[in-house]
């Protein structure tokens, strides 16, 4: 049966068909739908872990215990999971283990553009890279076989365009995999230095064996056409190259990107007049070619930043450009914004009003950095708001403490904010941390987490008591506010900033997009009372605009949150 599937859905189908039984992940665009789709197969146990390190450790444990296991994350998530990754590489597997990592060239939804292939090389874990949905499924299945054959975890590298493009997939049946026998084997699984030294030798031998495999395997494919131009490529850049050159070039399409073959590349290059390496982000394939003495052109033409496309390749290599018309005047940009009714809005308005320094974090609320709210000073990585604030306060002292806050979402706080809060209490700064608890992991499209009381299947689960958790970290001042009441938020922020000890403010209201949230009717504007003062525009609500000097509320967007009503001194905005 043929089906149109997202790369991520096809990946999950591959897990199903390969007989995977345990999956633990943390959501992150563009990887999230792999696990969401896997959770729809009842044969696979799936969970959202608190972070990627936990997820990979769960997958490693399940593999050692004999199951085919899986975990998924975005590229920066692999940094969090790097600790177990580098040693899981040494222990190897029992049941096959695959890690799905989705890179984001072009940074559609990420804070950096790192190339996960570096982690594969550094951890000596083999990596495969599909170029469409069908390959996402097939490569995943093959990765499980190879994982067990070569006794190593495997990484399947996705990129945004593969993860979020639908293409045609032929469905197969699931092959059930009975649990492998679990045998206690300390020399393999306990990485004492004495054991690890021997394991490292095995890892190096394994890499050589995998390189030998890469020389002649179904993952790597040569397509000879016209041999004037030879292109060595992988993933989406293969598709872009094919679209530009079709039969007018020859291709070495690499499905296995770590380790890379040597003879295969040398033989291909010897057949072609000019050889280009077309790869996104870093020069992994190109450096390898140069290291083995193969002359290629790559980054000198394409550079290291952003996504490639058929247009870039056609322009750079053929000097061809398509004709098109531009609109006749300036088109204003439309950046992403907090939704109408977003519970974060009121908090950021208050922080802007009070001129606070805001140590920010990763989530929908990073949009609090944009005008007109403009209330964020830093965003580094998950959890850095809390620990970073402590560092700022240690550096600048008591006066600074009285105007600086950290903001962090519920899911991000669980992911890696807790340890930062422990540090604030233990190493004593009068830091003020605001947990924006919207009862969901929002930005990645509504995943449950340990604060919501539900698991990935939507079934009731243990629920973290955030107030009790913060107190047990050593924070005495913990209070809850409703972000729809801005005056309440403002009073709380002022009081906690003034307090001579650390404090946590939990701003609690569910995301306005959650299905169970009942919306109030859209608010209306009494034009006779509206004086056109534009105070309502200062909260940056996409439902409010000014037409002919008067405030207008878009009834298709407004959910009646009432924040603008609090802004409207003449009382023109009403129910």
């Amino acid at each position, binding site marked *: 049966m043929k089906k149109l599937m997202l790369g991520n859905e096809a990946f999950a189908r591959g897990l199903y068909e390969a007989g995977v039984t345990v999956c633990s992940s943390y959501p992150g665009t563009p990887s999230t739908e792999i696990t969401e789709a896997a959770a729809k197969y009842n044969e696979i146990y799936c969970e959202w872990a608190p972070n990627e390190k936990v997820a990979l450790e769960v997958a490693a444990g399940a593999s050692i215990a004999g199951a085919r296991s899986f975990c998924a994350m975005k590229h920066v998530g692999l940094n969090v999971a790097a600790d177990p990754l580098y040693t899981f590489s040494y222990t190897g597997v029992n049941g096959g283990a695959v890690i799905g990592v989705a890179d984001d060239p072009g940074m*559609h*939804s990420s804070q950096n553009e790192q190339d996960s292939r570096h982690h594969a090389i550094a951890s000596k874990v083999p990596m495969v890279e599909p170029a469409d949905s069908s390959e996402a499924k097939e490569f995943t299945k093959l990765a499980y076989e190879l994982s067990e054959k070569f006794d190593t975890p495997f990484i399947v590298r996705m990129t945004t365009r593969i993860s979020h493009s639908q*293409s045609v997939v032929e469905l197969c049946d699931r092959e059930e995999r009975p649990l492998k026998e679990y045998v206690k084997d300390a020399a393999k699984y306990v990485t004492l230095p004495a054991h690890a030294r021997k394991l490292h030798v095995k890892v190096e031998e394994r890499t050589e064996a995998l390189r030998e495999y890469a020389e002649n395997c179904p993952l790597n494919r040569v397509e000879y056409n016209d041999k004037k131009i030879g292109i060595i490529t992988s993933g989406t850049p293969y598709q872009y190259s094919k679209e530009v050159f079709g039969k007018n070039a020859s291709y070495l399409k690499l499905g296995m990107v770590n380790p890379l073959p040597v003879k295969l590349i040398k033989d291909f290059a010897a057949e072609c007049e000019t050889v280009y390496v077309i790869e996104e982000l870093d020069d992994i394939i190109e450096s390898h070619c140069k290291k083995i003495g193969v002359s290629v052109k790559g980054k000198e033409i394409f550079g290291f930043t952003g996504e490639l496309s058929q247009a870039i390749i056609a322009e750079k290599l053929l000097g061809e450009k398509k004709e098109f018309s531009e609109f006749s005047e300036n088109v204003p940009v439309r950046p*992403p914004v907090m*939704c109408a009714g977003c519970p974060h809005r009121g908090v950021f308005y208050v922080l802007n009003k009070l001129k606070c320094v805001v140590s920010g974090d990763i989530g929908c609320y990073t949009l609090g950095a944009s005008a007109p709210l403009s209330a964020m000073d830093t965003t580094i990585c998950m959890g850095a708001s809390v620990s970073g604030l402590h560092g700022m306060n240690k550096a600048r002292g008591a006066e600074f403490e009285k105007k600086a806050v950290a903001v962090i979402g519920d899911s991000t706080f669980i992911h890696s904010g807790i340890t930062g809060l422990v540090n604030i209490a233990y190493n004593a700064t009068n830091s003020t941390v605001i947990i924006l608890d919207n009862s969901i992991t929002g930005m990645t*499209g509504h995943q449950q987490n340990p604060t919501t009381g539900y698991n990935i299947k939507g079934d009731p689960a243990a629920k973290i008591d955030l107030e009790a958790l913060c107190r047990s970290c050593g924070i005495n001042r913990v209070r809850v506010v409703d972000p729809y009441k801005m005056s309440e938020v403002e009073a709380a922020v002022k009081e906690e900033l003034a307090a001579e000890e650390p404090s946590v403010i939990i701003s609690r209201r569910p995301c306005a997009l959650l299905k169970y949230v009942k919306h109030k009717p859209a608010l209306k504007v009494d034009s006779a009372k509206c004086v056109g003062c534009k105070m309502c*525009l200062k909260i*940056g609500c996409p439902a409010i*605009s000014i037409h002919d000097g008067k405030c207008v509320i878009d009834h298709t967007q407004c959910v009646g949150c009432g924040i603008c009503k609090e802004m409207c001194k003449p009382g023109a905005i009403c129910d």
Partner: protein
Amino acid sequence: MNTKSIMIVGVGGQGSLLASRILGNVLLAQNYDVKVSEVHGMSQRGGSVVTYVKYGDEVCSPVIEKGEADVIISFEQLEAARWLPYLKKGGHLVVSEQKMDPMPVITGAAKYPEDILGKLSSLGADVTSVDALGLAEEAGSPKASNVVLMGVVSTKMELSEDAWQKALEECVPPKFLELNKKAFALGRQAAAN
């Protein structure tokens, strides 16, 4: 056949994902090779979003570049202007008459251009504009404006109405099927007028 390229553009949250899924399923049922490239994540939050649908004997790249789209379907006027460079010479532009001010316009940092539809036509684009939001409300929900636009587009493509109805049944939850069928019919009707 050569690859055909259709772009669906709009504002995050307007329902372009459903529209592209309906389109993808219609095309797959005709045995074409199909690729549909979507936007998830941060830009979905009220930002400018674009979905690419490509079909033919063999589709390679999942994305559409400037000067390549045979059809652009825009859920909003300003977005039609933004993505105009992607339209091939002689391509069709199907535009919902809805206007949504982006944040720089709301804050007063920029101005929403006047008479976008007129200007698009004068630039040589073949423009079909409809009050998709009004028709969707007539069908029962403003959220169905995506399906109204699919109705309009269906008149620009050589596929049977039956194929479209089947794709609607596959992609829309049964609870909303009647509403969406009505929205689709209103879109077809509007295109004919």
